[in-house]
């Protein structure tokens, strides 16, 4: 475990020493701060709308950070050839994959925590209400969803040689799932065979990332989600993480790395 944590530590250090990360980070924080603090005409609907934009922005920024950070991990190790001294140590390729995953996931957690803290403080100080548990549920489920995304991108990064290619494909795949994934079964009903079976199979195979999107409980002040549902969603995500990481390890362990 120490080795995995050490690899994760390097991933986190790299992310927090990159300038592009700070640009996105500061930009999101600023927009959240501005949109969250203004109060147009004391209209609740506008306030809600601004909240929605802020949370959407947090979702997009976190996705961009997660995908771009993860996509370059293994390809950059190979391109900069840092993988060679790393694998010359008593480290297995499974530990490298797990360490990279953990590093990206923890780095995203810090970014998410700061985004939500900004948003929560601004929104709470204006509305004089502090629904901390709701914020925690939204943050937790988004972070859990990002674990699946990070594992998927890591799997992509051992298949595709170019990080740009991986980023593009994974970004479209994730957006596709988020926007269309939940409607695949309805679409399948209107299809003939074999398209219907194929769409149903796809519906049951893909990770339903849209289930983790609970922004509405904050925006519309809906009641909290039952904790059991949160736990089940976490377990559901864990299954996909394990599957994607296992697939990444299977491909990576067979990769010929020649200096």
């Amino acid at each position, binding site marked *: 475990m*120490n*080795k995995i*944590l*050490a*690899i994760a*530590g*390097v991933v986190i*250090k*790299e992310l927090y*020493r*990159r300038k592009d990360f700070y640009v996105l980070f500061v930009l999101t924080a600023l927009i959240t701060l501005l949109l969250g603090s203004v109060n147009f005409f004391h209209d609740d609907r506008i306030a809600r709308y601004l909240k929605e934009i802020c949370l959407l922005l947090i979702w997009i920024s976190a996705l961009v950070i997660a995908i771009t950070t993860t996509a370059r991990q293994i390809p950059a190790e190979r391109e*900069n*050839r*840092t*993988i*060679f*001294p*790393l*694998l*010359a*140590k*008593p*480290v*297995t390729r499974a530990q490298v994959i797990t360490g990279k995953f953990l590093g990206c996931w923890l780095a995203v957690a810090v970014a998410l925590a700061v985004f939500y803290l900004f948003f929560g403080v601004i929104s709470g100080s204006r509305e004089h209400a502090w629904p901390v548990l709701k914020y925690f549920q939204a943050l937790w489920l988004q972070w859990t969803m990002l674990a699946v995304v990070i594992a998927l991108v890591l799997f992509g990064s051992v298949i595709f040689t170019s990080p740009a290619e991986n980023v593009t494909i994974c970004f479209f795949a994730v957006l596709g799932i988020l926007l269309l994934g939940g409607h695949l079964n309805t679409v399948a009903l209107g299809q003939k065979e074999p398209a219907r079976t194929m769409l149903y199979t796809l519906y049951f195979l893909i990770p339903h990332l849209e289930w983790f999107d609970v922004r509405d409980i904050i925006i519309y002040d809906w009641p909290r989600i039952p904790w059991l549902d949160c736990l089940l969603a976490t377990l559901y995500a864990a299954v996909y993480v394990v599957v994607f990481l296992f697939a990444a390890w299977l491909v990576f362990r067979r990769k*010929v*790395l*020649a*200096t």
Partner: protein
Amino acid sequence: MSSILRTEDLRVEYRSRDLKQTVNLALKGLNLNVSAGEVFGFLGPNGAGKTTTMNVLLGYVKPTEGTAHLFDVDVREPIARQRIGYLPELTYYYKFLTVEELLRFYASLFEIPKLEAESRIDRLLKLVELEHARRQPIRTYSKGMQQRAGLAQALINNPDLLLLDEPTSGLDPLGRMKVREIIRRLKEEGKTVFFSSHELGEVETICDRVAILHQGELKVEGRVDDLMARYHCNLEQVFLKVVEYQPQP
């Protein structure tokens, strides 16, 4: 003396990615045996198979046939790398880290306790003369400094076997001298050093034994003195004879 590094009938084939899948034989049944405390020079022209051998020993490439062992452990097992230090030809380190952080990271991969790791880092930075730059990111280092940082990372686990891939390539005369001094010091400490190099003068002065590889085959192996006596010439000329070099008329 006990064998530290051993390869038996090591054969490595690379298949091209085209449809024909042409087979390129990088190693053709290599047998090597390096004993404890030796400084072993691994020589050969470019494309001879030196790097492939290193790649197999470090577990980067799986042999098509044959076996390779470090400390009697199959090189495919990560534990085989517990007692080795590896210095690549070029500096392949995380440039955003400082040398101190880099050494701390590698120390944690060897599961060296924190206090012990800190004292080793101090000692190694002194040895490679990088104490003054310990908190600077590696990207700000000169090539010589980066190579010395590389040497420090190769020694972090106090290895019994050092694998050095052209350790002095690209260094200025002072840098080369420094690396040679360190290799000599390690030899005095009883460490085993296995290194590939094109600097035959350097090999002649440092190595106890050498092996000359050509087109994936081991052509000659023996003590440096014995080889020079057998061929009645210096190591460079031995090398040229073994690889059947023909000067252009």
